[in-house]
């Protein structure tokens, strides 16, 4: 039996039944798409297609269309790659690490975050592929036997380790996401009226029947995948950081890189989740499931990871002086005061200062403010990679080789294009897939649903509460009225009646808690 203390804010607002949850999540998929969806989708598609056009131009003409030069021979391509991989960190963290920490609030966001992760990794994957110039030779990144050609991969290169790490991450992430979707697809299948969608969802749901045996296997697989995914959260960005840190270039070679890149990745990933969730909850009327408290939790994660990143920046800065290595010292001095000072200070402002504003409770519970910061953070994280990569390269060892990097239109076009493509994928996901995990949300309804949890006699039958709850929950938290809290420490009576119907979901609860 699981209890939740009375002083905790409920995770599902208002009075919801199991049926309400199914309805709320399935309705946006079953109804006609709103006009706004078509508008957003068209915009994203146009931008995405422009990006594809730029990529085709690049493939037809050659890598020279980028703004690279002999000194800065790695710039937007790798920056964008690292940026997207970083964004693709939140999903697995939410589904695996937060699962291990038994954070129930993650259930409101894990499905979309995982989807976002997969799409972000797709976008990341584009860059190394097109950087080869010959897309059709892409399979050369795998260690294929020599009969395929005369080239063998370089096992000493962290770029190759990237191939292994990211493809493993993508496969495990995808399977994890898909396994979670199966029972929900079955729900959609059972509700579908049109033959085509019925057929589609029944294929997607792999013949799920909801039998105990199915749940049992579902649990087992989820647990194993969570165990596998947790080290992957760390490994991927650690290896991405090795791309730089194994070198001897001042500003790249520093031992703090692996954990600090992981923190930065989680930082930017959560910011992207915020950006998407804040729009989605509004557009799809999911305010009861993703509410201020969820936003606050995510903001706290952003604040903590942002602070870790900030600590790492300052550590690097300090040690570059402390080490007494003048090249190292110069690299950092040049970052802050050289020709790219604006990039450095944008990074510092966006990544170090802006998340600190989340210390103010008012601000971290403000949806508008959160939305702005979530975008600011991702701008900052893009600059971080740009600063690391370009400012370290542009001052070569010989002053005669010093140079600057100016992006070409194709650089910009491809980058913006991937953002468009990313939204195309995400909008399709939001249109056809259940954006919240139906089965998992049901497992926390009786534990953390507002009407079951705090005042059973009060809230039953008040279906029309809707928006009033934000203010209500807020009051309770800021003024923790002790007697009221104590009154309800004993479990709400309603949970006993619900035990019967809870049976089928019990399995899911278990995996959650293991």
């Amino acid at each position, binding site marked *: 039996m699981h209890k939740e203390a009375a002083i905790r804010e409920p995770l599902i607002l208002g009075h919801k039944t199991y049926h309400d949850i199914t309805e709320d999540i399935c309705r946006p998929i079953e109804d006609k798409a709103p006009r706004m969806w078509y508008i957003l989708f068209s915009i994203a598609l146009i931008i995405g297609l422009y990006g594809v056009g730029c990529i085709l131009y690049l493939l037809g003409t050659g890598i020279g269309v980028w703004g690279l030069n002999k000194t800065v021979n790695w710039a937007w391509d790798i920056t964008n790659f690292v940026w997207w991989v970083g964004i693709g960190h939140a999903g697995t963290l939410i589904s695996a690490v937060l699962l291990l920490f038994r954070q129930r609030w993650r259930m409101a966001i894990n499905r979309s975050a995982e989807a976002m992760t997969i799409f972000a990794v797709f976008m990341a994957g584009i860059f190394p592929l097109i950087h080869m110039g010959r897309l059709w030779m892409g399979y050369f990144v795998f260690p294929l036997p020599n009969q395929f050609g005369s080239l063998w991969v370089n096992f000493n290169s962290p770029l190759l380790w990237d191939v292994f790490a990211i493809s493993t991450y993508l496969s495990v992430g995808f399977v994890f996401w898909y396994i979670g979707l199966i029972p929900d697809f079955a729900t959609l299948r059972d509700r579908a009226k049109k033959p085509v969608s019925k057929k589609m969802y029944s294929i997607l749901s792999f013949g799920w029947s909801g039998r105990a045996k199915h749940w049992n296997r579902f649990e087992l697989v989820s647990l194993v995948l969570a165990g596998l995914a947790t080290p992957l959260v760390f490994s991927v960005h650690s290896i991405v950081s*090795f791309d730089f840190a194994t070198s001897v270039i001042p500003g790249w070679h520093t*031992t703090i890189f692996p954990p600090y890149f992981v923190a930065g990745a989680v930082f930017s990933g959560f910011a992207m989740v915020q950006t998407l969730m804040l729009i989605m909850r509004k557009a799809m009327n999911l305010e009861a499931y993703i509410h201020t408290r969820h936003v606050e939790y995510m903001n706290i994660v952003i604040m903590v990871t942002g602070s870790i990143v900030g600590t790492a920046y300052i550590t690097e800065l300090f040690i570059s002086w402390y080490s*007494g290595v003048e090249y190292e010292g110069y690299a950092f001095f040049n970052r802050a005061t050289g020709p790219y000072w604006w990039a450095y200070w944008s990074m510092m402002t966006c990544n170090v200062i802006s998340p600190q504003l989340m210390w103010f409770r008012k601000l971290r519970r403000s949806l508008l403010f959160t939305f702005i910061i979530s975008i600011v953070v991702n701008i900052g994280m893009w600059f971080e990679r740009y600063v690391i990569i370009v400012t370290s390269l542009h001052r070569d060892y010989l002053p005669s080789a010093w140079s600057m990097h100016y992006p070409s239109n194709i650089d910009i076009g491809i980058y913006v294009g991937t953002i468009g493509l990313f939204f195309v994928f995400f909008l399709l996901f939001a249109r056809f897939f259940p954006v919240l995990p139906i089965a998992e949300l049901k497992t926390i309804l009786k534990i953390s649903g507002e009407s079951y949890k705090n005042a059973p006699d009060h809230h039953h039958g008040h279906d029309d509460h809707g928006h009033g709850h934000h203010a209500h929950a807020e009051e309770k938290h800021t003024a923790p009225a002790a007697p009221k*809290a104590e009154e309800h420490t004993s479990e709400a009576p309603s949970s006993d009646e619900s035990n019967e119907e809870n049976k089928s979901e019990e399995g899911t609860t278990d995996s959650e808690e293991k």
Partner: protein
Amino acid sequence: MEFKISNRAKLVTLSLIVVGALFTLIGAFTMEEHGLQRFLASSLTNSFFFFAIGLLALFFLALQYATETAWYVSVKRMIEAVAGYLPYGILFLIITLGVITLYDGAHIYIWMDPEYTNPSSHHYDAIIDGKSAYLNKGFFWIRTVAYLATYYLFYLGFRKRSLEEDRVGGTAIHFKNYKKGATFLVFFAVFSSTQTWDWIMSIDVHWFSTLFGWYVFAGMWCSAMVVIILVTLYLKRLGYLPRVNDSHIHDIGKWIFATSFLWSYMWFSQFMLIWYANMPEEVTYYIARIEDYKLMYFGMFIVNFAFPMLILMSRDAKRNAGILSFVGLIILAGHWMDVYLMVTVGSMGPTSHFGLLELGMPLLILGFFIRVILLNLSKAPLTPVNHPYLDESIHHEI
């Protein structure tokens, strides 16, 4: 339930102290060369190791406050008892660092020796001189006092409010702890790195690594979790903790497992990058350890990584007192070895010996450390009675 220290525990801790003191004395008087340096290096190793366990227990407590965790409430007093070693840990550390400072670094912190920063001396070292804006006796002590005073004040506050909550109840203290916990973490985030640079990294004064602070932090966190579980299992075996169930034990076991991985990850990240880049100013640290202490150095890594990974992987193992104690004791020794290799090898180089002194001093402080923890346990009820999450913790089941 009130805890009383058994006579057996009194006897065991006392004999540890006596045997440890005896070994230390015999060791100290039979040393041939580098006597003072060897004594102080050993003293620094042990005062830092046990201090850091207390500190990381305090960190863990603050972390639970700040993250509004519930399951830990049943074992909260055990965490507090371990953190309660902090005042003594601080005292030993101040004494050790004080004596080292009086002897101008005693060849441990050679940057304290004015000869090295004196341009006219033949010992003059430009790199050390370059660091002297940060590494000098005055600033070192300002920082040391700032860290230790901060920790001490936070410890006093946490302990006071924890006991007060038992008497008063309500949620005001809980919310205050939430804020104080977060504030502590802010200080800790900075200090945990800088204190490691000051007290440990500056021993290998030419060497530097940005990750070093986090690496030491991870190792000491793991050690603190081991001590917490050993204390809990000990009390449970005596029948003291009816409200601590298998799930609580399992959860602390998971923390040991996780922090072991965290430590190994940090170890690997630092080692891998330095080994791969192979830059002379960085590899010195590993060369010193690998050339003269190869077996000990890699043995320490393998033990601290492989033991918890292989043995604590399964769910049942994390619920088994015997397995947990076995693995816990081994990796505790392993992490002690890690600190020993940082401090002793850093200061003594190939000339260090592992003799009676090196064996006696940890035993002496260990005996004292256990005694302090048991004393702390006996001073307060073993389960906090009015914590708002108590009910959630009692019903903890995973």
